[in-house]
């Protein structure tokens, strides 16, 4: 992560979002999993280059935070592009497992514990 040119890195990403700084939907979290639709919707226009990069990265399911890190773009910018892709039917999004402190999911916790035990 080079620190040189950091002012440019801040401004430039928004050219990828058409100047928008807010997403159209609020449901993309750090660990929402995104997968490229296969096949892509029929008759869809050719995706712009950054959208193509996202679609290539999430050919297999990938969390939003991981996409942002691998694209080297801020989460906020990636989420705006994901909203466009979702609305165009090019990706599917799976929300994280909900965590409710009043009704704890023991099966889930056991599964995590067993997984950690295998490390």
């Amino acid at each position: 992560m080079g620190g040189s040119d950091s002012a440019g890195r801040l401004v430039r990403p928004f050219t990828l979002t058409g100047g928008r700084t807010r997403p159209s939907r609020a449901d993309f979290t750090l660990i929402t999993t995104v997968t490229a639709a296969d096949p892509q919707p029929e008759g869809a226009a050719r995706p712009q280059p950054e959208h193509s990069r996202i679609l290539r990265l999430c050919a297999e399911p990938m969390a939003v935070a991981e996409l942002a890190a691998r694209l080297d773009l801020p989460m906020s910018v990636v989420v705006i592009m994901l909203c466009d892709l979702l609305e165009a039917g090019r990706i599917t999004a799976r929300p994280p497992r909900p965590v409710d402190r009043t009704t704890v999911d023991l099966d889930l916790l056991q599964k995590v514990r067993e997984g950690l035990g295998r490390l």
Partner: protein
Amino acid sequence: MAGSDTTARASAGRPAPDTVKILIAGGFGVGKTTMVGSVSEIVPLRTEEPLTMAGLDVDDLNGVEEKRATTVALDFGRISVSDDLVLYLFGTPGQQRFWFMWNDLAVGALGAVVLVDVRRPKTSFAAIDFFERRGIPFVIAVNGFHGEHPYPVEDIREALTLPDGVPVLLCDARERESCRDVLIALIDRLIAQAAPAR
């Protein structure tokens, strides 16, 4: 793939896994990213968010050099605990002025590990306070400098004025097994807290 006309089944490859997260918190430079890296199956990744994009008021930028671009970095790793469940570990930003980022981070977290540097325990007070106030379960992991632990657990518990029942573990953030045991202790605490509620 054949016959997938519903969006949920649109992927040709493996289905998207369930995801959960645990936060690794503590003061600046206490070893959070080291811990993430020790247990992660991938080299820790970093995502950076420009502060201005996070909806920060200009007033809140006191102390931040004006013309310089400031970002909040988030380091994270992942552990595939099974075929269909992935655990993400997020190292929280250490500097206190970036804590507005934490509310988003904390939503939906299973729990947290608060790393403590025995030489500078005060730097982790704010993290302890944060999780206590929000009712987010946590364990304390004391990261020994060079893996050494000169103080007994009871002294550390007293120095941190911890509520009863918060586990305190001695660890070495550089060691995979040590970090794994800390995570298991957190899960055990979550399981134990769930049990008497019934």
